[in-house]
């Protein structure tokens, strides 16, 4: 299978990306609206997604909308937000059963495009606003959803580290926005926001599965006929943060927990658009991306300090994190071991096995994306957001050429910014 998208500009000023494969039993149709990440925009977009999935003009009642989807062999529908660097995305997705499994034809596919349009542009309205009861209920649900991040300690520690590290940058805004901005939103203001988002946000449509490009162009054009858009280009996908001070910020928070959560935030200065991006992927792999990598081997296997200890990168903003679940008393030891591992990467204390196993691991991960439509779409979106489309084949090529010197060079650019620790309420107060 050739995992290269065919791209075509549609009449309603949106790009259609298609990828044909017959190996799946379902087809993925998606539409993505991009905007600049901002405090009030994030909250409104998040609320909008939740309200839109409650119903459409044709199926204004949620239960009826859901029953219709059940009738269509459990067609899946999502309307949600995501964050890539300092872009905020409203993402709509519809998953339909491949018609080939239902006796042929293209009825499900055609209906799928119709549902995508209804979901995104034809909401259940009331007067000049969106349906007031849905807006009221979803305002409460959004607040609960934002607050419930506390329930997942790892996710919570992650977010707190980011909020502290990127205090002065837009990146600190959570993808769901802020509780304090929910109240002011009304059915009328949300309808205006919706109209503007649909008209002005740059839009990309994806069709992945048993779909010929020409058929997809025809169906998407037909489905969105009459939609007039005047897209305005989004701002920069990321901004350079302040230079970390030589002494990293250190934040300790206390809560009734059984395990300490350590998150260390780094700035890499390298994004998806950078020619050093493959080397950064590589450096992350050697450092903490795999079980063969330095963090897993030293924090878990040698020191028995953690069940998990790994690193990961944000491709658009150029950040890296290390996270580990550790004993409360192991904070200093763990931070020491973690820093020493990155120093080893910087100094080139890297075995040939570490290099080659990382190369094989990265290439395997890239090849496996071919089996996962959502991963293929995510790679394409990273290219769109960063203004540099990259095929998985090209990425593999680049990975195959990364040298130890490249890994050392990018590792030297990586600076520790913030150390965040979530710990229990007992124990030393000065930890």
């Amino acid at each position, binding site marked *: 299978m050739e995992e290269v998208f065919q791209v075509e500009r549609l009449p309603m000023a949106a790009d259609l990306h298609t990828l044909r*494969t*017959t*190996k*799946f039993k*379902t087809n993925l149709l998606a539409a993505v609206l991009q905007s600049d990440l901002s405090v009030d925009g994030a909250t409104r977009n998040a609320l909008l997604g939740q309200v839109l999935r409650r119903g459409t003009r044709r199926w204004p009642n*949620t*239960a009826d909308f*859901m*029953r219709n*989807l*059940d*009738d*269509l*062999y*459990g*067609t*899946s529908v999502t309307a949600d937000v995501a964050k890539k660097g300092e872009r905020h995305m409203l993402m709509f997705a519809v*998953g339909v*059963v*491949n018609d080939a*499994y239902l006796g042929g034809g293209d009825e499900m596919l055609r209906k799928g495009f119709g549902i995508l349009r209804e979901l995104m542009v034809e909401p259940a309205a009331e007067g000049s606003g969106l349906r007031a009861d849905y807006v009221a*209920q979803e305002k*409460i*649900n959004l607040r*609960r959803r934002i*607050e*419930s991040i*506390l*329930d997942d*300690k790892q996710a919570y520690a992650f977010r707190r580290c980011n909020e502290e590290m990127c205090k002065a940058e837009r990146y600190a805004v959570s993808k769901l926005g802020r509780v304090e901005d929910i109240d002011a939103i009304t059915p009328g203001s949300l309808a205006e926001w919706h109209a503007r988002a649909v008209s002005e946000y740059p839009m990309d449509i994806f069709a992945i599965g048993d779909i010929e490009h020409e058929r997809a162009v025809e169906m998407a054009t037909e489905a969105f006929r009459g939609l007039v858009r005047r897209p305005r280009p989004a701002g920069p996908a990321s901004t350079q943060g302040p230079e970390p001070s030589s002494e990293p910020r250190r934040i*300790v*928070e*206390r*809560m*009734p*927990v*059984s*395990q300490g959560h350590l998150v260390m935030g780094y700035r890499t200065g390298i994004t998806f658009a950078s020619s050093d991006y493959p080397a950064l992927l590589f450096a992350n792999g050697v450092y903490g991306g*795999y*079980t*063969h990598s330095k963090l897993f081997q030293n924090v*878990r*296997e040698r020191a*028995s*300090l*953690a*069940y*998990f200890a790994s690193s990961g990168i944000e491709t658009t903003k150029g950040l890296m994190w290390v996270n580990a*679940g550790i004993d409360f008393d192991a904070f200093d030891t763990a931070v020491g071991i973690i820093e020493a591992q990155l120093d080893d990467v910087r100094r080139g204390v890297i075995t040939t*096995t570490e290099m*080659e196993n990382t190369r*094989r*691991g990265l*290439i*395997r991960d890239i*090849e*496996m994306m071919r*089996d996962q439509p959502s991963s293929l779409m995510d790679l394409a979106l990273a290219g769109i957001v960063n203004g540099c489309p990259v095929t998985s084949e090209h990425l593999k090529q680049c990975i195959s050429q990364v040298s130890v010197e490249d890994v050392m060079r990018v590792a030297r650019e990586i600076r520790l910014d913030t150390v965040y620790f979530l710990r229990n*309420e007992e124990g030393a*107060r000065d930890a």
Partner: protein
Amino acid sequence: MPEMELDRSELLREEVAYTRLDCGLEVATMRKRGFAKKYAVLATRYGSCDTKFRIAGAPGAVSTPEGVAHFLEHKLFEEENGSIDDIFADLGAYSNAFTNYTMTGYLFSCVDNFWPAFDTLLDFVMRPHFTDENVEREKGIIEQEIRMNDDSPDWQGVNGLLKALYHAHPVRDEIAGTVDSVQRITKDMLYECYRTFYHPSNMTLFVVGDVSAGDVADRASALLDGRDFAPAPQVERIRPDEPSSVRVQRVEKSMAVSEPIVCFGYKDPNASSLASPPGQPLMRRIIGMEMLMHTLAGTSSALYNALYEEGLIDASFDWDYDCEHDYGFAMFEGRSNSPDRLVKRVTEGIASFLSAGVDPDEFERTRRRVIGSMLRSFDSLEFIAYNFLTYHFRNMRLIDSVDVARSIPPAEAQSVARELFDPDLLAVSVITPREPEGKE
């Protein structure tokens, strides 16, 4: 070449080829043409519930601390000179393992080097290397894994429910054990459990990906059939007597959460009457209940939408039914600011749903939905591998799912539900918020 038995689903357009090797190992392969990923799991019928057993010919029964199956899973990766993960990493393969109540599985996935990785999997699982030193070292890692689960409110909610439903059955214990029970685990215990439960005749190898079933069977046979395995031990798994009642009706635990999380469910009174392994009747029961519970409380149901509009549930609300030959339960879970009111509304909803009888049109709509989601799930190799083995160890065939879903009449699902939703067999587990003391 070992003889193959084929099982095929016309609707799914999938086929599984089975064979049993001379050493007793069952081998099954589902070929997925066009997929880059290849996925293999070697699993044994041994899980966290198997803490007491008797071997024919041995003097008495053996009891082990909670968490041995999971501990053994961790330690099997250890080699004399390092971890088997290193060899998989050299091959560019991803390796992992899992333990649940009834099984332990070792897996790898890869794109290239499938056969060397395959050889590695079959070799290392059949060759334990436990030492006092490496067993001690693992205790710190597992303690952190247990503490991670202690901080997971969803996990604690479900575990609380099982502790409320069950008096004695080991399904009420944590899979990884406790910080204390893990301390009591020794090298000798691991060897004893290994000898008891890791005989090839107690195990199944499953491969999914673009690989030929014949090649898989031939290679497995070449690797294992020449080996000198001890005769298969006759193992009796001893379960404590479990009263049919629930142990307590309500349990509560306070944690750092944003609002209460409630998990409530019914103990299946008929699980103990199923054969072991249960086979087709259980498959009809599980799929029938999935269809019934979706009709009752799925996103398109009147009940779900009423609860959602009243703010008693949010999108986190979910339900599940699971059953083995000696335990089973149907449960509902989600965040709710009024857990007791939610339980009351759902139980009332169940009562009126059962007295009115299942609406045939709604049941047919659910049937389409369930068939569609089964088709969808066969796009995921991970889903296929895990569920194939879960089904297989219960003597059920995953690939027959769609045919079973097509054949269940509403009356059949309804009669299962009438037995299952017995108000006397209901228990509730609530995670309540504990306020943090504050930030520094």
